[in-house]
């Protein structure tokens, strides 16, 4: 197979970089910028010392990591820049008060923003945009920064597979060589169950079980609406629109539900959880007696509306899509191998970057057009652009080091066969209870790479082969893989760092990771149990 013997020593060695990262970030509250380089050094030592990684393999893996990092950081820096333009125009506060117009009920606001609006954004943009955009918005509305990042990270993750125009689903189908039509029902059903669980998690992170009880009705009704919409569209073959349409249906549903006074107003007798940070005081939003004119809300939201139009336009209008993607930065890589014979195939294009068609470019277009609109309407003064740039650099610099080093670590582990051995070890030990662990392998892939798509590429074939060997239903196991990969978004350090950097929590990722891991373990375990029962019944 090209990897060392799957024994405890090699498994622990492969796990060492992840363990170091977790211990430093969760146990010692180190930020990603400090823990990332340590984990990178451990990964390098293990890859060279235990897995026979040669110099050329290390060099090429780090160049691939460089490309992948640019690809990710483009989104982060652009999302932050867009946010600061919007914030400097005072629009975050206006949007917050506008949402308070839809519902003053804080629990419903969490559902609307962290669960449904993020799903909508994941459907059209993805790649970390939902958390990067919504978390600071929630902070601006007076939610605690940790709650904002945790709720959005947990809330949107169910929609990742069919989000981003279903890139992850296509990757799963491609790498497993099983047609999408044979996987869609199983994947959409498991992700539909995850939809309810992620909604519960998002609300729970705000105010525990009391909030879940209060939101029980909307959770059930809106969850059923979104999960069914995604399932129907996936089964009909409209994979690319499944999560986006689910988000639209959810938004319509929440507008209708909040016509009911119970879901529109905040119960007066309850004391809300303490609110910290943010540019707007929560009390101002809830208690405000001056209604915000709809025109003001629309103007404030215009930068995000432009983003939606640009992303939809580029995916629907083929000539536009072709034009903005005509310039592409590519590097080709030759095959590399370890001394054990683990081979990384040659590729002519690894994570090509289209400077004008990339998700980050779309965020930048929205930021500049939004700037023009705000400037025209007198919301922004002179020097706002420089101020936004300066705030973006200050906010993104530290987290960027964390991301670059973690991507470098992940690539070292993947290219030296360490990640594959980790998954193989889990499969060997699990045997008949493998279905229980199948989604955790998906989580592992996403944890390492920060991407559901990469997780599916990394482990899709392994999951299919293990299912074949153990006589398990392949579609169910692959559905568990992609569900795990999607849920892994909530625990992936690279994504958490993105959320933290936009919510003003740079260098304080530890508490967020702790909470997200808790929700991730519970939700993934439930998905694993369902996969186990489903496999037994098939």
């Amino acid at each position, binding site marked *: 197979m090209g990897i060392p013997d799957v024994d405890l020593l090699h498994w622990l060695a492969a796990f060492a970089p992840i363990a170091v990262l977790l211990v430093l970030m969760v146990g010692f509250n*180190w*930020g990603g*910028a*400090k*823990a*990332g*380089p*340590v984990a*990178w*050094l451990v990964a*390098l030592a293990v890859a060279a010392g235990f897995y026979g990684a040669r*110099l*050329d393999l*290390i*060099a*090429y893996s*780090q*160049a691939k*990591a*460089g490309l992948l*990092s*640019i690809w990710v950081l483009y989104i982060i820096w652009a999302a932050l820049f867009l946010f600061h333009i919007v914030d400097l125009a005072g629009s975050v506060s206006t949007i917050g008060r506008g949402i308070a117009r839809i519902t003053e009920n804080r629990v419903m606001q969490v559902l609307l923003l962290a669960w449904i609006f993020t799903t909508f954004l994941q459907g059209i943009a993805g790649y970390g945009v939902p958390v990067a955009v919504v978390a600071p918005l929630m902070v601006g509305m007076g939610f605690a920064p940790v709650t904002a990042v945790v709720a959005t990270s947990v809330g949107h993750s169910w929609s990742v597979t069919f989000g981003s125009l279903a890139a992850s689903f296509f990757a799963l189908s491609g790498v497993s060589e099983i047609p999408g039509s044979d996987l869609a029902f199983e994947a959409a059903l498991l992700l539909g169950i995850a939809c309810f669980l992620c909604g519960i998690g998002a609300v729970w992170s705000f105010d525990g079980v009391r909030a879940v009880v209060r939101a029980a009705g909307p959770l059930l009704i809106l969850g059923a609406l979104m999960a069914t919409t995604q399932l129907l569209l996936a089964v009909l073959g409209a994979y690319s629109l499944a999560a986006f349409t689910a988000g639209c249906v959810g938004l319509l549903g929440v507008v209708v539900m909040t016509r009911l006074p119970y879901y529109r107003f905040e119960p007066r007798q309850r004391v809300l959880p303490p609110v910290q940070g943010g540019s707007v005081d929560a009390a101002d939003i809830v208690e405000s007696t001056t209604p915000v004119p709809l025109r003001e809300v629309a103007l404030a939201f215009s930068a995000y509306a432009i983003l939606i139009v640009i992303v939809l336009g580029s995916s629907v209008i083929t000539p536009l899509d072709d034009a903005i993607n005509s310039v592409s930065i590519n*590097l080709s890589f030759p095959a590399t191998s370890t001394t054990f014979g683990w081979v990384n195939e040659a590729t002519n294009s690894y994570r090509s970057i289209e400077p004008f068609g990339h998700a980050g470019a779309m965020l930048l277009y929205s930021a500049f057009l939004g700037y023009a609109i705000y400037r025209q309407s007198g919301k922004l003064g002179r020097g706002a652009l420089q101020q936004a740039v300066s705030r973006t650099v200050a906010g993104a*610099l*530290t987290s*960027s*080091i964390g991301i*670059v*080093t973690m991507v*470098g670590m992940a690539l070292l582990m993947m290219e030296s066969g360490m990640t594959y051995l980790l998954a193989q070890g889990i499969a060997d030990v699990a045997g008949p209870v493998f279905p229980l662990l199948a989604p955790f392998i998906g989580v592992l892939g996403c944890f390492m790479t920060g991407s559901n798509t990469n997780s599916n590429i990394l482990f899709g074939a392994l999951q299919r082969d293990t299912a074949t060997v153990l006589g398990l239903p392949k579609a169910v196991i692959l559905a568990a893989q992609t569900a795990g990969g999607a849920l892994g978004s909530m625990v992936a350090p690279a994504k958490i760092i993105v959320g933290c950097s936009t919510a003003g929590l740079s260098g304080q990722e530890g508490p967020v990771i702790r909470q997200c891991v808790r929700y991730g373990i519970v939700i993934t375990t439930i998905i694993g149990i369902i996969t186990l029962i489903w496999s037994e019944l098939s």
Partner: protein
Amino acid sequence: MSKPSKRTIRVVVLIGIFVLAFGMYISTEAGSDSVTAALLALTIALMVAGILAG
């Protein structure tokens, strides 16, 4: 000479990682193992600097 600020070190670390990663790509493509090894050693030093500045 005054010590560089943490922010300066972070900028150097971030840019340095990219420069060294693509430098290793070029030197490996050119078949120059000694240059690649030297660049890898520099990357390790940069990571240590990153830890100290973190």
